[in-house]
């Protein structure tokens, strides 16, 4: 790809970007959110048309007008948000859009072919399973099989590890290596430094829509890559000041919570958090962390046990009552829950606070105060946005999370429940979010932080609790944490209670 230029209203997403991919190579495409990585690959896959630039495949100039043409050229892409039809089966999804089953579906032959591919690449899957029944890792496998079934020689993976557990990530890397050994090529889009270093033969770094450099495996160095990506030095260690934990803020006693599937997702769980303390909850996604946080914030009723805030029972209180009592909540789903995309930035900035004075009095809203609040917070938290009346959907991932934090932290919360607070954020935004959480700890808030990033848990927490199968299988001070032990506990093979 030579000199690719793609403009969107107000931004140049790709500014004369060059990109070269060799056969049998795993090529990491590294950059912060909004650096233009996905845009570049969407151009390759025919989703976007570049304003300038040329694409050559095997030295032949091509014009890729649609994903179908890209597929015909042997290009496959697995998007960050999977494009699967959830009520349909794996096999139906793989065949969707193909011309080959012209009228009558020969499901058996197609199924055999899928199984053959899945065996060859050790990507086990049940072709008859329905997508909604599958974990995110399995869904990704379906997407990969879909591309392989269409004969992809060039496979583009957009942020493939963001939905995977550590063991699944390992599996993915093994598969990527196998692809390369067979002489096929893989483009691996990411902003995670460790992963790009572990998996790639070469790395191209993009920043603000421009090429920074392309490095060979032996030239890779974490600090160098990070500064190339961000454009300045990045601190990998956070300054954490000592805080003496104060009185007990949150207390859970023998709490059992029902999960969506009709089984208890949290079982007899007991924990407490004090003022000025961060409790990091480690664990593989789906072991009850979500249900635990929802029970504390009121999104989900508890089956038995008690939840206390400053000694007062709150488990039967409404969500709005808990907000008033100072529970801030940074949920996992930013787009669908924490910051509705169709509302304006100003409206989203009072989402959980519009009942309070001065934002409303009686039944009427005070638009003037809501606007002032937006101006103040946009400035204070450095949210990049075209204006307070812009819809939230125009914000990038990092800025959306800043917006959510701005709102949740501006009310002097007593307890902050943060779920995957830095998931999907780039290095700069991650650094900022973490520093905000630490500042709240110093200000005397109690924090419960769920994360799948062990580094994050280790560097931020005062105490660590590991969850497995809806239970806490171990709690210890962060200073005594042992990464191997935590890993074993997350996998369910060690218990220390």
């Amino acid at each position, binding site marked *: 790809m030579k000199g690719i230029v793609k403009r969107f209203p107000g931004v140049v997403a790709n500014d004369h970007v060059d990109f070269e991919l060799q056969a049998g190579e795993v090529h990491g495409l590294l950059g912060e959110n909004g650096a233009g990585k996905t845009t570049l690959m969407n151009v390759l896959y025919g989703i976007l048309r570049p304003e300038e630039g040329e694409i050559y495949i095997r030295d032949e100039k091509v014009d890729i007008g649609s994903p179908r043409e890209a597929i015909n050229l042997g290009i496959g892409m697995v998007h960050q948000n999977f494009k699967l039809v959830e009520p349909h089966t794996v096999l139906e999804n793989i065949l969707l859009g193909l011309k080959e089953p012209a009228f009558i579906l020969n499901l058996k032959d197609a199924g055999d072919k899928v199984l053959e591919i899945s065996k060859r690449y050790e990507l086990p899957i049940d072709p008859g399973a329905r997508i909604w029944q599958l974990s995110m890792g399995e869904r990704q496998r379906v997407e990969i099989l879909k591309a392989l079934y269409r004969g992809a020689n060039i496979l583009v993976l957009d942020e493939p590890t963001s939905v995977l557990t550590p063991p699944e990530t390992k599996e993915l890397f093994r598969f990527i290596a196998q692809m390369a050994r067979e002489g096929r090529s893989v483009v691996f889009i990411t902003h995670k430094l460790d992963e790009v270093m572990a998996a790639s033969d070469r790395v191209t770094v993009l920043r603000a829509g421009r090429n920074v450099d392309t490095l060979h495996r032996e030239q890779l160095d974490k600090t160098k890559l990070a500064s190339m990506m961000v454009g300045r030095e990045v601190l990998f260690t956070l300054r954490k000041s000592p805080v003496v934990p104060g009185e007990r803020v949150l207390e859970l006693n023998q709490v059992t919570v029902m999960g969506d599937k009709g089984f208890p997702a949290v079982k007899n769980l007991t924990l407490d958090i004090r003022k000025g303390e961060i409790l990091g909850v480690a664990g593989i996604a789906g072991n009850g962390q979500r249900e635990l946080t929802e029970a504390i914030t009121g*999104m989900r009723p508890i089956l038995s046990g008690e939840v206390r805030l400053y000694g007062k029972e709150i488990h039967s209180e*409404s*969500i*709005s*009552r*808990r*907000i008033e009592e100072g529970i801030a*909540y940074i*949920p996992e*789903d930013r787009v*669908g*829950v*924490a*910051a*509705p*995309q*169709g*509302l304006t930035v100003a*409206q989203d900035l009072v*989402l*959980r606070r*519009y*009942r309070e004075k001065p934002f*409303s009095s009686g*039944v*009427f*809203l005070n*638009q003037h105060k809501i606007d002032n609040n937006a101006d103040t917070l946009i400035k204070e938290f450095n949210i990049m946005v075209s204006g307070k009346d812009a819809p939230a959907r125009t914000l990038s991932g990092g800025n959306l999370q800043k917006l959510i934090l701005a709102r949740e932290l501006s009310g002097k919360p007593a307890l902050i429940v943060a779920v995957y607070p830095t998931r999907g954020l780039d290095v700069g935004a991650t650094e900022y979010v973490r520093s905000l959480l630490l500042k709240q700890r110093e200000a005397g808030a109690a924090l419960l932080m769920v994360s799948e990033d062990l580094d994050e848990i280790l560097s931020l927490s005062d105490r660590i609790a590991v969850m497995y199968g809806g239970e806490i299988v171990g709690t210890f001070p962060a200073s005594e944490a042992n990464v191997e032990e935590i890993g074993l506990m997350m996998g369910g093979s060690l218990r220390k209670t």
Partner: protein
Amino acid sequence: MTIAVPVVSLVLGFLSAAPLFLAVGVNPILAYRQVLGVFLNVDGLTESFTRGIPLLLASVGLCLAFKMNFWNIGAEGQLFMGAFAATGMVFLLPDSSAFVLLGSMIIAGFIFGGLFGMIPGYLKARLETNEVLTTLMLNFVAILWVDYLVYGPWRDPEGFGFPLTPMFPPNARLPWIPGTRIHAGLIVGLVCAGLVYVFLARTKWGYELKVTGESRLAAKYAGIDYLKLTLLVMFISGGLAGLAGMGLVSGIVLRLRHGISPGYGFSAIIIGWLARLNPLAVVPVSILFGGLLVAGDALQIGLGLAFATSQVFQALILLFVVGAEVLTRYKVALTWE
């Protein structure tokens, strides 16, 4: 663009109806003149306003429900319940002053329409039933309930067996503009459109409605009580449709009868969408829509067209206007392959 698209789509709609007129042996030019004439003479215009009143009231109510993604297809039924309740007040208080009687008719019409709207609201909030089905089905309940009354206990003994109640006394008739059929319901409708606009733009409920329309989970996260909000919104939405029914019996027909509404509650859905759920925009759209209904009548009376033919004509116009509305939201580019 926003002006050009509806105008062009209207013209195309007219042109597409030409074969229809030719097929039934009518000169299309005459037919067009007949239709446009509605908007060019006083009678046609005032009648457009008259027909626009129930459309306006019902549609303004629907804006509220639709804004929170509650698909109320039941305005027709809520309208019938309002008409029923208003008529009931005439039977209960036949001798009270016009002020008391009309006041109680308005209140009863609103409350019964509203309560009838709250049923599917409650069912959805509590049991997750699909409101499209429940509101749609409840239409038949309300329409048939009114049929039962006008064919049975409320039938006018001197009505030669027709399915209608006795004529209302003068104290049950809404004030009207002499020489026309425009009644005080128009003022009620305009006031309600203004109130709903303020409700949406300036109140906490309006904000809650917008959040809920965006995402129910987000609303829950914000601490919004979905049950309470749905009941409130459906009470108002149904209540406004009920007022439309009250206006029909008390301002136009002056009795309750079989088929009191020819589907105003359904047309109100289209109007709401054409007005992009903006209650102020609903006002002109309702009146234009009223004009389209009058034009249908004019074709029947003036040119002797069959009822069905005029309906096909109206449908064609709507099809083009609604279809073209999509175009105003996207940039259209013609590319050469």
